[in-house]
């Protein structure tokens, strides 16, 4: 019975511990995997202009001798935004796989798809914007 009551009291600490664990993991993900400081539950919102929707994603289809930029269609906007927020292999590869389904104007199939995530930075004096790449991944396509 005492054990049971103690365990019930311990449950009270769970939400605070969960908050702490997630918030401590988030800077690690931001530093090592390019997670946007606004995302991931680390309370980094309103601390930097590097928000997920300010990042932009480029996708290129690569076939022998040709590298063509793919316009990301509207229905993949959510997948692209997730990749922008956390450009880890899983999210970049998921976007590449979805884009590979889109028919290509070139003859033959593409060998790979490159996904790049960029963020915008601002010069401290005049706020002149510049883009810097957060992450790039080339995803080989099946059949090669």
């Amino acid at each position, binding site marked *: 019975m005492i054990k049971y009551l103690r365990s*019930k009291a311990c449950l009270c600490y769970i939400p605070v511990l969960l908050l702490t664990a997630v918030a401590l993991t988030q800077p690690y993900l931001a530093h090592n995997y390019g997670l946007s400081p606004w995302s991931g*539950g680390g*309370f980094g919102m309103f*601390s930097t202009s590097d928000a997920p929707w*300010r990042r932009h994603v480029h996708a290129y289809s690569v076939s022998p001798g040709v590298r063509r930029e793919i316009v990301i269609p509207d229905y993949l906007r959510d997948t692209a935004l997730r990749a922008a*927020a956390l450009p880890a292999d899983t999210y970049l590869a998921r976007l590449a796989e979805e884009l590979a389904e889109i028919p290509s104007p070139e003859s033959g199939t593409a060998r790979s798809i490159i996904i790049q995530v960029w963020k915008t930075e601002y010069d401290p004096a005049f706020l002149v914007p510049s*883009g810097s790449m957060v992450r790039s991944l080339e995803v080989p396509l099946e059949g090669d």
Partner: protein
Amino acid sequence: MKGIKGRITERLSGIYAGIGGMNIVDLSLRLTLLDMLLRPVGDRTVRPLTLVFAALGLLIPGQLRSKLIWLPLAFLTGLRVLLDWPLPDNHAYLLFYWCLAVAIALSSRDSERCLAFNGKYMIGLAFAFALLWKAFLSGDFMDGRFFSIAMLTDPRFEAFTGSLLSLDVNEIEGLRLFLEQHIDGKLPARGLDIPSLPSKLHLVSEILTYWTVLIEGAVAISFLLPSRAAVSRLRDSFLILFCITTYSVATVEGFGWLLIAMGVSQSDERRKAVRYLYVAAFFLILVYSYLPMFR
């Protein structure tokens, strides 16, 4: 003849007594449910059920403290974080932790103590982590760049920017287009037409930056220190001050209301004035969200 003034005074006294006499846990739970109804969370799968449980909790007598309300709400708000990951904002996480804390507190022997513990330390930790990002981890906050960019590009700051920097819609739009242009790499240094920034922008950004660090630091320290510490006695005032200043500028009412609901849970039952101030701040944020001068 009892005039209109008399009747209004009587009604207001009734409201005043009702809030003052309400149990602190009940008030906190009511404000949480109101927050969820006023700013519904989640997508098509989570939102309808969240609304249903929040409405039932408020509507049906005796259900406010029911685990059958709060366990599903904890599950749904947690599911929303998982489904939207990594995109949910801080409010989504905090709402999930809070609903979980309520569900656990209602199952514990001392609900009030358990909820007060979670309210106090969750607020303290959230502000401490926010401060960690702003003061140490972010590269563009302390020099005022974040607020300069936000004021000129974030629609949530538009009304504030327009009135404070004396800019009209077209001027804000011109600066926004310059700042939000799509650039891979750097702009060419030669022939670059850099628009002139409003003269007061830098000063206003610096004031906002230091004010934010100051007030968030005050909230973090006062909530994380033991209640017997002198500064801890000021924690409710700091949080209320944060809410009434921040949410007059930034339109994230849901976050403000949640902080207030959590703040109420840990406030001293005997200090009635504090709970009136919390409730007044809740309604002030509601007013902010509808008055054109703030939006």
